[in-house]
């Protein structure tokens, strides 16, 4: 029997099913509303957390960048004040590194032939290698610094500029193996002409550590994009400087990624949801005001909604457990309450089979089922009495029928005996009547020839036989009298026909 058949056939199962269905419906509605608002609240909280961490990181980094800019500004003022003493540039480039241990290097570079005595190239460069500060003139035919981004862009823009991080490994002399970014600003002479560029270098390792430390969730990570979308900081080192956020889209168009990349390099703030590897990622991004770069915190949805998922799992577990308990309770209570009905049903079934002595459950309940039990009990009693009376009438009728049958049998026996007697008498009367008829015939034919004596003999013989016949007739009459009485008794018995069972039942 499958569950549907069972539910159809069982009132308690059907009632339990409907109760639980209603409760499930209510739970779904209530939990749906709860989950919706919980999810929104958790997401808002996670976004707030990620945004705050993003802003905190930006503030911290920008604070450091600001310090670098202030140091460079101060140094630029000094350089411009001492523009006529080129050798002092070595001191200045060294001094700024001594005063700012965060700085990796400093170039004070000038236009070709700006100092005639220095020739085509003059760039005072100091580098902090961690142990000491080295200073040298870095320009040469092999390293024409004025074609380099750090010099050229600031000169072209004629304003301070943070250049994209680069690995300056092709320089000769001091080789910088680390990636650096430079804050470059033009140096002006008294006529406000650009005469050179002051550049201070900052190690990207510092950026990388600070930005990668921004980790609001266990599996979240941060990335830093350069102006062209290049990954300047990324947990996957194979992407660093080699790929941009748009690289994968060159082969396979990806609207989500392109939109995110455009927003980030466009200096926008906000968040976007990316779908990757069957999971959604929330990407919170904000630009650096100083450098034009953009930092993003990438958070897997599973991390953001972990509290929500935890709550959801717990609630689902409790709900399912509660529904199971409710189902069990409903089945138990309803079955318990319906047990009298089931017993009444069994009793009724037995009664229908003729067992009116079956016990009918009784209880002290005063509800509908109690009333039903009492009514059923009374009905059983009434039926039992009626059936008992009917049995009694039937028995009486049976006895009467038996008596009647017996009387009938007796009457029939009497009748048979009477017939036998009459037949016997009739047989006995045959000979005297035959003799009488012969004597009569003899007398009629030979009365003339008969003597009186003979006549008398013949008459005597006729009389004797007549007496014999008369005697037999008397006997017949006697017998008829007896059978007549018996027949009268039979007649009176026949008039009262035995009752059939059906007739007796209807009475």
């Amino acid at each position, binding site marked *: 029997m499958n569950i549907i058949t069972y539910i159809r056939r069982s009132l308690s199962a059907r009632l339990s099913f409907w109760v639980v269905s209603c409760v499930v419906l209510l739970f779904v509605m209530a939990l749906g509303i709860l989950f919706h608002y919980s999810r929104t609240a958790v997401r808002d909280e996670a976004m707030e957390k990620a945004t705050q961490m993003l802003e905190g990181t930006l503030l911290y980094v920008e604070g450091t960048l600001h310090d670098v800019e202030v140091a460079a500004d101060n140094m630029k003022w000094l350089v411009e004040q001492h523009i006529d003493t080129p050798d002092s540039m070595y001191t200045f480039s060294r001094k700024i590194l001594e005063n700012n241990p965060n700085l990796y290097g400093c170039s004070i570079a000038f236009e070709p032939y700006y100092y005639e005595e220095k020739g085509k190239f003059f760039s005072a460069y100091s580098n902090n290698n961690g142990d000491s500060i080295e200073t040298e003139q870095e320009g040469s035919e*092999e390293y024409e610094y004025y074609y380099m981004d750090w010099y050229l*862009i600031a000169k072209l823009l004629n304003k301070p500029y943070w250049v994209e991080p680069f690995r300056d490994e092709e320089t000769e002399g001091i080789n910088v193996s680390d990636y650096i970014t430079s804050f470059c600003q033009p140096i002006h002479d008294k006529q406000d002409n650009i005469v050179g560029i002051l550049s201070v270098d900052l190690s990207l390792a510092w950026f990388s550590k600070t930005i990668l430390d921004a980790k609001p969730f266990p599996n979240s990570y941060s990335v830093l994009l350069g102006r062209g979308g290049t990954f300047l900081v990324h947990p996957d080192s194979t992407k660093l400087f080699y790929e941009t956020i748009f690289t994968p889209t060159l082969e396979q168009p990806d609207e989500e990624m392109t939109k995110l990349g*455009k927003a980030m390099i466009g200096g926008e703030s906000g968040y976007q949801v990316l779908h990757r590897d069957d999971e959604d990622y929330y990407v919170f991004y904000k630009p650096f005001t100083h450098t034009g770069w953009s930092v993003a915190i990438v958070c897997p949805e599973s991390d953001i909604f972990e509290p929500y998922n935890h709550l959801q799992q717990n609630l689902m577990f409790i709900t399912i457990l509660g529904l199971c308990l409710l189902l069990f309770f409903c089945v138990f209570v309803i079955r318990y309450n319906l047990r009298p009905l089931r017993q009444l049903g069994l009793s009724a079934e037995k009664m229908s089979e003729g067992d009116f002595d079956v016990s009918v459950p009784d209880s002290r309940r005063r509800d509908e089922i109690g009333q039903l039990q009492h009514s059923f009990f009374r009905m059983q009693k009434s039926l039992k009495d009626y059936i008992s009376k009917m049995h009694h009438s039937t028995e009486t009728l049976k006895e009467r029928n038996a008596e009647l049958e017996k009387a009938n049998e007796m009457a029939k026996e009497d009748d048979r005996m009477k017939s036998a007697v009459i037949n016997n008498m009739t047989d006995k009367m045959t000979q005297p009547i035959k003799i009488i008829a012969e004597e009569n015939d003899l007398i009629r034919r030979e009365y003339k020839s008969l003597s009186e004596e003979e006549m008398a003999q013949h008459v005597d013989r006729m009389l004797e036989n007549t007496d014999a016949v008369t005697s037999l007739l008397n006997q017949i009459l006697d017998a008829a009298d007896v059978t007549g009485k018996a027949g009268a008794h039979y007649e009176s018995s026949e008039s009262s026909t035995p009752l059939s069972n059906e007739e007796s039942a209807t009475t």
Partner: protein
Amino acid sequence: MIGHLRGMLVFGLLLFCPCMMRAEKFVFTTAWTPQAEFAGYYVAKEKGFYKEVGLDVVIQSPTLSSTVYHRMETDECDAGIFSMMSAIDMIANGAPLVNILQTSMNSSYLIVSRWGKDPMKEKGKRIAVYMAEPNYMAFILDRKKQLNYEWVVFTGNINVFLSGGVDMMSAVSYNEYLLLRQAGFDMPEKSIFRFKDHGYNIQENGVYVKRDYYDTHRDQVKRFADASKKGWEWAAAHPDQALDIVMKYVRDAHIQTNRVIQKLMLKEILRLQIDPDSNQREFRLRPDMVEKANLLMKDFGMIDRDVTYAELMGQTKITTTKTKAK
């Protein structure tokens, strides 16, 4: 008797094992750091095509301080890659070169403008051009159209352009154009001037040797050219495997690039090798393009004499008259 047998054995080994013979060293300098632009040469080396012709080819990359021409001039290398116009310029200026292999059959040069503007309407604006390889076409266009561009020479990459320091940049379709796309830079078609589409379709990269080297090593350069062609044909037939080889060179040189860019670059380079008329990969200089390049360069004062097709192919005597430098 034993000595006689030993001698015969050595002779036999030399006769039947040419692989044991010492390959001739041939130093070749590409036009730039390792990238898919030179895939055919890397393939020829890695697949043993150079060895098959008895050459031990060393592939070098130039640096900012040591250009291809500088290396050839100082005999640091035997062959190098130049664009056809660069070669004409050098020959016209008294540095005789001979083309031993022409790979490019089309111009890849273009000018990209910022803000979606038409480069032809950016009169007097700044344009960035490479220090390593001058874009002759841009100079010719500037003079012909009287655009009065302000030239900004830079060393490489697209940072100068992205910074807004210049309004336009000279680019090639297989490199900077792809880098700009990779940087998410919006380039509506009207902001791109493709020289090929405006009557300036001039062949570019080819392999050149100095004339004196050519005269004394004709067999060697022919073998190099044949093996290089084979390398390019193989790269065209097996682009994915060729890309694997390119990426090996890229990784070894710590080049800041990625497989996607190199794949697109190889595809574009192979496309540029198809002759526009025959639709075949021909590996030859086209006399008509040589003539056209001469005409343009002479008209705009870049050279003051014709450098003929025969001269480029090493089929004439050297003209030693030096002309005024550009």
